[in-house]
C-alpha cells in the first residue's frame, strides 16, 4: 500500500536519512525503531510529504506521491511528536478546526468529533481549554486530531513521550484497537522497545539514518537465536567489574542497566560460575541473576552496539 524507495535526505550536506526502503501492507502495524537522532522523524516527515526527499520516492498504491502530495495527504493521519494543538482553544474547537481542514462539515464533522472523543476517553472534558489538560490528555487530543478524517494510514511519531503510565497504556490500547478493529494501517515510531513489541507486527530498526534490520518480531529475535541474555543485579554500580567483563572474550555484549549489568553471551556457554568468581574478585555483591531469551532491545544492542535510549 505504502512504500519508500531509496529515500534519502541531506541537510546542508549532512546525511540525515540514506537509502531507506520500507513498505506497509494494508491493515498492518509496523514499527520504526531507533534511538534519538536515528532519522525516524525525518523519514516519516518525507513519507507524510512534510519535507521533500533529496532523492528516492514515496509510493502510495504504486503511484509516486512526491510530485503530487495531495493524494497521500487525504489518506494520511499524522500524529506529530510534539503536542501540536492550539492550547488557548478548547479540545472541541481544536478538533472542529482540524476536521474542517480535511473537508469535514456539518453533521459528519460532529459525528466524527464525538466518536474520536469517545475513543480517546475525553468526552467529558471536550469543552475545556487545552492548556488546562494534563500532559497525557494533551497527547490523547494530539492523536484525536489525526483521526478525525478516518485516515487509511496512521503515522505516529513517538506519541507517548513524556506521559504518565496510565495515559501511555490508554494510547497503546487505542492504537491497537484502531489497527485490529478498524483495520487502520499504522506506522509507529518509538524508542520504547516494549511499545513496539506490544503494538507492531513487523519492525524496521533504524540507526544513523539507515535501516539496519527489519522483519517480524520473531524474525528479528532469531538473529540472536544462538545467544542468551544474562541479567545480573548488583547492590551498587561496580565500574571495574563492568570494564573487566567488557574485555572478556566469552561475552558478546556488556551493558550497564539500572540495577546492574546485562550480558549477551553464546547460548549454552557455561559462564555463570566464572561470572561469580569475577564478581567476587571485585568484591561485588550479586543480588540476583536471571538468564533469559533475547528481546528486541537485545537485538538492537547486538546490531548497533548501543542502547535504544543512548
Amino acid at each position, binding site marked *: 500500500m505504502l512504500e519508500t524507495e531509496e529515500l534519502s535526505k541531506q541537510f546542508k550536506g549532512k546525511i540525515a536519512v540514506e537509502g531507506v526502503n520500507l513498505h506497509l501492507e494494508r491493515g498492518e502495524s509496523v514499527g520504526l525503531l531507533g534511538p534519538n537522532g536515528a532519522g525516524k522523524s525525518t523519514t516519516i*516527515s518525507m513519507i*507524510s*510529504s*512534510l*519535507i*521533500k526527499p533529496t532523492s528516492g520516492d514515496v509510493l502510495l498504491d504504486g503511484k509516486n506521491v512526491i510530485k503530487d502530495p*495531495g493524494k497521500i*495527504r*487525504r489518506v*494520511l493521519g*499524522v500524529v*506529530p*511528536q*510534539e*503536542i*501540536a*494543538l*492550539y492550547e*488557548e*482553544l478548547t479540545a472541541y*474547537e481544536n478538533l472542529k*478546526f*482540524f476536521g*474542517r*481542514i*480535511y*473537508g469535514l462539515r456539518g453533521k459528519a464533522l460532529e459525528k466524527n468529533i464525538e466518536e474520536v472523543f469517545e475513543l480517546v476517553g475525553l468526552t467529558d472534558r471536550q469543552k475545556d*481549554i487545552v492548556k488546562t489538560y494534563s500532559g497525557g490528555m494533551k497527547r490523547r487530543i494530539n492523536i484525536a*486530531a489525526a483521526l478525525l478524517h478516518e485516515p487509511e494510514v496512521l503515522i505516529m511519531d513517538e506519541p507517548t513521550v513524556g506521559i504518565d503510565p496510565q495515559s501511555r497504556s490508554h494510547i497503546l490500547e487505542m492504537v491497537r484497537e484502531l489497527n485490529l478493529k478498524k483495520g487502520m494501517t499504522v506506522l509507529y515510531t518509538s524508542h520504547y522497545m516494549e511499545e513496539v513489541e506490544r503494538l507492531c507486527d513487523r519492525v524496521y530498526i533504524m540507526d544513523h539514518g539507515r535501516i539496519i534490520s527489519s522483519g517480524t518480531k520473531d524474525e528479528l529475535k532469531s538473529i540472536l537465536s544462538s545467544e542468551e541474555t544474562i541479567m545480573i543485579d548488583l547492590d551498587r554500580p561496580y565500574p571495574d567489574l563492568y570494564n573487566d567483563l567488557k574485555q572478556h572474550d566469552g561475552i558478546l555484549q556488556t551493558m550497564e542497566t539500572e540495577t546492574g549489568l546485562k550480558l549477551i553471551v553464546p547460548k549454552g556457554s557455561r559462564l555463570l560460575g566464572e561470572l561469580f568468581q569475577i564478581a567476587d574478585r571485585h568484591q561485588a555483591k550479586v543480588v540476583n541473576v536471571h538468564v533469559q531469551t533475547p528481546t528486541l532491545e537485545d537485538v538492537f544492542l547486538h546490531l548497533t552496539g548501543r542502547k535504544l535510549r543512548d
Partner: protein
Amino acid sequence: MISIFLLQWQRFRREPLLVLSFFGLTIFFVFFLAGSANTNQITVQTYLEDDVSQSSADEWLTVLNQSETFRFELTEEEDARSAVMNGEASLALQLRNDNYRILVTVDDQNYQLVNGYVQQVFQEELRLAEVESSLESVEIRDTIAQELEEPVLTVTSDTIAGDDNGFLYDARLHTLFGMTLFFSVYTMMFSLTNVAEEKRLGTWDRLIVSPLRKWEVYLGHLLYCFLIGFLQILTIFLFFEYVFQFNIGANFGAILLIIACYAFAIVSVGMLLIGLVRTTQQLQAVIPIVATAMAMIGGAFWPVEIVSNEIMIILSKAMPIFYGMEALKGVAYLDQGILEISEPLAIMFLFGVFSMGIGINLMERRAS
C-alpha cells in the same frame, strides 16, 4: 483558507489583550499628545474697561470666539496684567464699548495675528451696527447672511501654515496619523508572530500535511493580520473624527485605500522579518526595534520636513510609514483624491509585494 482565517479570529477572541492594548495605547497617545480640544488655538486673556457692561462683553466674546484659531477668555484686569507681566501670556485684550486695546510685551507673530483678527471683527461689527441703525426697517444681518449663501463672486485664499519652508503641518492630525500608523505596526506584526509560533509548536506542520495548500495557509494568516491592522487604523480614525472632531479629510475612499495599502505593506514587512529571524523570541525582540525606527525615520513622530540630515531624509523614503503619512496628509490637508496620492499608494503596494516575496521565499528555504 477560510478555516485558517476564522481560526485566527477564534484565537483572538480567546486572547484579545495584546491587540486591544495596542488599540488602547493608540487612543491614549493621540488623546494626550494631540489633545481632545483644539490645541492649535491661541488663548487670549480678555478683560473689560470699566464702563463696558457684562452683556456687551458677552456679545463681543461670542463674536470673537467664532474663530477656530483663537479662544478669548474673560478674566479680571489684574489677572490679565499679571499674566502678561510674568510672561505667562504674551498679550491680553481689553474690550471697550466700540474699541479695544491690546496689552503686549513683544511685537511677535501672535500679536500680529490677534490684532488682525480682532480688528477685522470690530470693523465688521461696527459697520453692521452702523448700517442697522441707518436702515431700521431692514434686517440687514439676515440679508447679508442670505447674500453670503450665494455669493456673486467667491475668492478662495489658501494659507500655507507652517515654518519658513512652507510645508503643511497640523500637529493634531500629524499625531493622529503618526501614532495610529505606528501602533498598528505592533498589532499587525505581533499578530504575525502566530505564524512563527505555529512553526515552533508544530501546528504549522500539521496544516502542511493536511489537504490544504500552502498558499491557503499563508493567505489565511495574512488576511487576518491585514484585517486586524486595517480595522484598528480605520476605527481610530473614525473615533477621533467623530468623537473629537479631527478633520481627516472628506475623501473617505482615498483614506480606505491608503489604510489598505499601508496594512498590506506592513504585513509584508512582518513576513520579511519572520523570514529573516530564526526564533519567535528573536522576532518579538526585533518588532519593537523595527517599528520604532520605522516610525522615527519615516516621519510618524515628527514631520520629515524638519529633518536636515540628508541621509535620514533618504532613509525616510525607504519606510512604508513615510508614504502612508504623505498620502494621509495629502487627503487631510489638501483634499487630494486617489489620483493625486497614487504615487505613495503604488510605492506602498510595491513595497508589500517585494517584502512578501522575499519573506515567504526565505521561510520556505528554511523549511526545506
